[in-house]
């Protein structure tokens, strides 16, 4: 499991953050949690993250802004957005800018697995070295 890709979770809600982490881990992946976008960007795990699960609404940088920042930095980390609001416009917007998926809380486990698989595939495709 050393080779297991790291999945980073950014959510300001602790309950959701920890629950998501537990679920991801139960699926056999390594999971790291961050309570804000700033914390994630400032960590050493940006480069090792194979998939990012990010909440859309957060104090400070939002999930959307986080994605924009990553793209601007040239980091093509596949992102799965999670939101407690359902805004279809937002969904269309983030998917266009390269998000893997968009999940509404409470999210469906199968959809998450599906998105994680797709994310890891695209990550692996992009970075064959890893």
């Amino acid at each position, binding site marked *: 499991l050393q080779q297991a890709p790291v999945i980073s979770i950014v959510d*300001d*809600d602790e*309950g*959701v953050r*920890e*629950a*998501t982490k*537990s*679920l991801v*881990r*139960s*699926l056999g992946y390594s999971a790291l949690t961050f309570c804000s976008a700033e914390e994630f960007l400032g960590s050493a795990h940006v480069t090792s993250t194979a998939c990012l699960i990010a909440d*859309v*609404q*957060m*104090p*400070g*940088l*939002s999930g959307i802004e986080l994605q924009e920042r990553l793209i601007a930095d040239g980091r093509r980390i596949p992102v799965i957005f*999670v939101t*407690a*609001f359902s805004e279809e416009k937002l969904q269309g917007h983030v998917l266009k800018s390269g998000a893997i998926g968009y999940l*509404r*809380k*409470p*999210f469906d*486990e199968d959809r998450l697995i599906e998105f994680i698989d797709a994310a890891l595939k695209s990550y692996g495709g992009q970075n064959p070295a890893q």
Partner: protein
Amino acid sequence: MDLTELVGVSAIKRLSLLSALCLVVSTQLASPVATQPLPRSVLIINQSGPSRPWYVALDNSFRATMISSPSGPYSVYEEDLDLNLFNGVNYEESVQAFFKKKYRDKSIGVIVAVGSSAVEYALHFRAEIWPDVPLVFAAVDETSAAQLKLAPNVTGSIMQMTLREMVTEAQVLFPDLKRIALVGDPLERQTFYRPFKDELPKVAAELEVIDLTGLSMSELRRRVATLPTSTAIVYTAIYLDGAGVSYAPADALGLVAEVANRPIFVDIDSDLGRGAVGGLVIAAAPVGEEAARLALRVLNGESASSIPVTVGLFDRPIFDWRQLQRWGISEARLPPGSEIRFRDPTAWEQYSTQIMLIAAAMLFQTILIIALFYERRRRRSAETVSRITMAKLADSNRVATAGELTAAIAHEVNQPLAAMVANANAGLRWLANKAPDLDEARAAMKNIVSAGHRAGEVIGSIRAIFRNDGQERTAVDLNEVVQDVLGLVRGELQAQGILVHIELTRPLPLVLGHSGQLQQVILNLVRNAADAMNSVSDRARVLRVKSAIHDPDGVLVSVGDSGTGIDPKNVDHIFDSFFTTKAQGMGMGLSICRSIIEAHDGRLWASSGDGHGSVFNIQLPAWRELRRSPRHAAAATRR
């Protein structure tokens, strides 16, 4: 130079008009008296007495003219002969003897004789007492004047006064006049009206004449009460009735008029107002004035003989309005130029000012009442419109708030739900593994429990906001309210990238109020603060919510933002209804907030933030009783 040129044409004409008597006497007697100035005194001799006000008025007018003369002053003596009651040779002789003695020390400049009978007496007296004193006559009818033609050193004025005129006047007013009733002393015994006797046959030829002269008053009153129709009463004068009772003629007229069944015509103005209709009456005053003018001319040196006798037009049609009403005579039927006396002033004539004022006041009141009614109606309809609008607005506000709340609730409930679902899935996974990880599964289960509790708390806080407090106010801890509100909008604020700084003072005195309403107020202020920071991108979006004890006995909650602040020009308006700077706001929020706070005896105001933005402050009075109670102290420390 020719004589005609000197005296002028008009003078020649006048000279030619001189009556024969004057021309004769002037030529005969002009010379002896002309040179000596006359004594500056006048003796008036009246044929009647004070019982006949007409003579009194005449004398007064005479005196007034004399006294206003620039050539005065003059002494005026006056004697009343009362010839209607007293006459005869003996009477005349004794009066003459009396005058002779009485005026022994008085020199008389002019004798003025009023009435034709007085002229006769005066001429006799003059011959005996005042020879060569000029005599001016007045109130003499034409017939009598003609008989004076041979008297020397005499002038005077003639007045028109005939029975014919009186009858004609009656006929004008009563065109179907068939008879006249003659009332008065017997004409042959009268002084003033004696010439009527000569006219009677002519009048009797045209109209039936009922002769009621010389009757006793009682008989007369009986007769005038039962006169046939189409009759007019012609009243001359009663000084002495058939029963030997003497009267003032006007009083006698009154007694007759009281019972008369037919209208009464008179011919001197002083008889008006005593029950007569009126007629072509002779006014006393002009007669007196004319006599005085003549007397003054004589006193100023003119010879009486050289002054022509004047014919005065002293009669005027004058009527008593009350009698016209009584006999149903239309004013249109009166001769042109008629004067109407004793007209009852109409209400308008009498009270026009008052009527105008009252009418104006009533008009003003009416206008005022109409205006007030109009204003009231307008206000009512405006109030109705306003009420409907307010209701609509409140409703839409409620709908909008409900929409926002739904989103907030969805967010707040979705978070723990998401945690629960993810934990449950994770737990199932941990158990489903070939080597079930019970610790991980247990942790996931625990997380489900805590997420479930959190969801319950969210629901609880929402219920707190919507709980109907009813009319009862309760002790409210504003810290709790703030926390409930922030808990509700947390997601919203996060979604907008707003950092929340909370500084709550504990313990905070309780306030008395409706917690639901206070929550709405704080919620509104928090939302406004969040909205104010929408456009902020160059600095942190910070929401600062503080609670504090506000000296001396108040509680302060402030909601500050780092937004754009309040434009100074809007400071005065932000609490107005419908004032908004938001593109999609209704502007009801702050005005409702202020209403709620003021209903709680508090204040809501805005101030500038430390750096950027603005601060909204709520100050509410602390609930003293509770603050001092030990229960509250305990509750406060427990927190």
